[in-house]
């Protein structure tokens, strides 16, 4: 027997899938999936009947306006800052680290921290989106700059200035991509600002929270309908030409701040006192005893909160990841012309876009009310939402495949041609969404599932911001670790160059173009 055959089996698509499935099964066995609600079906019926009869007159118009305004300004700020950072992203390590750390903290956690400084205010709503998004924009814009076809730049006269190079080559080449991605981020931003309402900001989520709590499902349905309409029509109202108008209008309608006090006083208190670990406050940092106290303070946080929180976060995200993969593989034929046909395909697309537009946080919130507290609502929400996204992308890839003329049909085509040919792409999407699922898993703790967010929310409501800060750092480190691991895995599987972003998937234009199939006269 050679040494090679003694070693572990080679990492391939199949073995990677097996490992993830196995981990998913282990996680499932250790998860709490009980349905503890007494009569979930009765409540479900009330919910569905309410959703089917939206009460359009009850819409709080200003909450919709503020949801859009926060998102527009937040995304605009994030995109501008991200663009500036992207220019030096490849050169400066510090920028890469900064971008990675701001984006590894979820918008809701940013909002929870910012509320301590800027109160329940427009500034909180905007910065909670702008800060993490600037990190995301920096990375994505930098990748686009790097991947851009800059062959035209090489033929410019060597003495051309940097500005000229930018204006003639880079901007024309990159602007359409930047715009597509920004538009996609605006959609995410709208979901984010909606959800910020659940923790007290005056957006749609604030009213949804009270409607759902009181069982006023018809009113909630009207708000959701308005939200879907906003997302569905975003290509109409968010255009390059309307951007200045949108930003100015958004600035004009911003709500007044409620009880924040002086900003400078708040931020000094926050940075200098609140988030400094209690044993280090006003202590002599050169004395050994200070650090002994610090260790004694930190140890129980690590053992009783961080480790169990990480455990539950990983369990939830692992189950959700595997379930997402299965859902995506089942769903994607429904938006694929070859399988769903010319009539089925658009219907399938609409369904997947609606599912994708539903904020997961709200879905978990509703499901928790229906099913009672357990991990099940979070698993359903995460896997369905992400499954719809990956399914949508896979469907678009599947439409670009050229099959040989004598290719099989139906299930045979799916199993022997479509899935094998797209499997690498599928893994690329799934691994990319792993880190996103993990970040969301941590956040769902705010709703009572024992992931990291649960401990963060508890620490904040006990006004122990120093503890919350440590927990948020731990969460950020966890998500960065998973991100690095996922990237490493994608490299090992040689799928690291495949598209993973929504905006990088094959475009509709290419999908609709006549393929290799000849038409006979």
């Amino acid at each position, binding site marked *: 027997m050679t040494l090679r055959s003694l070693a572990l089996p080679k990492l391939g698509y199949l073995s990677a899938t097996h490992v993830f499935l196995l981990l998913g099964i282990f996680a499932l066995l250790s998860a709490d999936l009980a349905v503890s609600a007494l009569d979930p079906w009765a409540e479900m019926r009330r919910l569905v009947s309410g959703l089917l009869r939206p009460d359009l007159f009850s819409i709080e118009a200003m909450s919709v306006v503020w949801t859009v305004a926060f998102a527009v300004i937040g995304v605009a700020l994030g995109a501008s800052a991200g663009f500036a950072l992207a220019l030096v992203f490849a050169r400066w390590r510090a920028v890469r680290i900064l971008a990675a750390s701001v984006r590894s903290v979820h918008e809701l956690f940013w909002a929870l921290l910012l509320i301590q400084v800027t109160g329940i205010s427009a500034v909180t709503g905007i910065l909670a989106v702008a800060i993490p998004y600037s990190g995301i924009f920096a990375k994505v814009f930098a990748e686009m700059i790097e991947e851009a076809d800059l062959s035209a730049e090489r033929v410019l006269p060597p003495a051309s200035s940097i500005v000229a190079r930018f204006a003639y080559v880079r901007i024309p080449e990159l602007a359409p991509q930047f715009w597509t991605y920004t538009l996609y981020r605006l959609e995410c931003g709208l979901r984010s600002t909606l959800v910020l309402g659940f923790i007290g900001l005056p957006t749609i989520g604030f009213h949804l929270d009270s409607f759902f709590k009181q069982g006023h499902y018809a009113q909630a349905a009207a708000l959701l309908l308005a939200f879907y309409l906003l997302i569905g029509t975003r290509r109409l109202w968010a255009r390059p030409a309307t951007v200045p108008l949108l930003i100015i209008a958004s600035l004009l309608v911003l709500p007044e701040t409620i009880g924040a006090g002086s900003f400078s006083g708040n931020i000094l208190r926050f940075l200098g006192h609140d988030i400094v670990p209690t044993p280090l406050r006003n202590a002599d940092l050169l004395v050994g005893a200070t650090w002994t106290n610090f260790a004694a303070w930190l140890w129980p946080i690590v053992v009783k909160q961080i480790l169990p929180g990480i455990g539950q976060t990983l369990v939830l995200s692992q189950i959700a990841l595997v379930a997402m993969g299965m859902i995506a593989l089942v769903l994607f034929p429904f938006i694929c012309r070859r399988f769903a046909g010319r009539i089925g395909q658009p219907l399938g697309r609409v369904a997947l876009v609606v599912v994708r537009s539903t904020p997961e946080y709200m879905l978990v919130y509703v499901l928790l009310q229906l099913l009672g507290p357990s991990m099940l609502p979070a698993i359903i929400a995460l896997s369905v939402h992400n499954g719809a996204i990956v399914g949508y992308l896979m469907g678009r890839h599947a439409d670009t495949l050229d099959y040989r*003329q004598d290719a099989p049909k139906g299930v045979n085509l799916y199993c022997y041609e479509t899935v094998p040919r797209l499997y690498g792409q599928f893994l690329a999407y799934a691994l990319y969404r792993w880190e996103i699922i993990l970040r969301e898993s941590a956040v769902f703790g705010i709703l009572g599932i024992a992931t990291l967010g649960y401990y963060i929310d508890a620490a904040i409501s006990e006004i122990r911001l120093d503890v919350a800060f440590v927990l948020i750092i731990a969460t950020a480190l966890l998500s960065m670790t998973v991100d690095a691991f996922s990237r490493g895995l994608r490299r090992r599987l040689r799928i690291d160059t495949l598209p993973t972003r929504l905006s990088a998937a094959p475009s509709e234009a290419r999908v609709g173009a006549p393929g290799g199939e000849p038409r006979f006269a």
Partner: protein
Amino acid sequence: MSILVELNSASAGYAGQAVLHDIDLKINAGERIAVMGRSGAGKTTLLNLLYERLAGRVALIPQATALVKTLSVFHNVYMGRLDRHPTWYNLRTLVWPRRRDVAEIEQVLDLVGLTDKLFAKAGALSGGQQQRTSVARALYNGRPIVIGDEPVSALDRIQGGEILGALCARHETAILVLHDIPFALGTADRVVVMEAGRIALDAPARELTAADLVPYYGG
């Protein structure tokens, strides 16, 4: 001899643009036809047209080998008969092939000299090996007519000759695009030469010499 297909002043094209004009062609069962001509002359379009007319009776070897690169050679060859098994059986074969099928496909791979690659990933093969896998899929398919678009273009003369022999032995009728003149004259009993979307020459192979064909290649 029975007529398989008959084209009368047929034309065909892509998206409204005609590539073939006034094609008159009658093909009998049992014929071995070499389709020749320069690139762009309309050979592939002619094959597509014939494939449409003969659908259901054809084993196809497309110009691009059209293999699923993430699956093994075995599975790619097995695909030639997907329509002849129930779907559950095909799904089972995907994860756990039956020994009988493996043995049968091994025999087919023996004809193209690929038995040692039975469970290798198709994507890991060289261009010539992929082409032989594509041929094996048609051989395993076993339908009476084989339509091949340059089935041996990536192979050397000896190997190409063996494979053409296997194709002609296994399939009653063969319609093959070939570029190699001696090959065409040696394998086929009828030569059809395409030029600018029309049939420029249609003659029995025994009446032709290499010198008759060279002009169509600009030589």
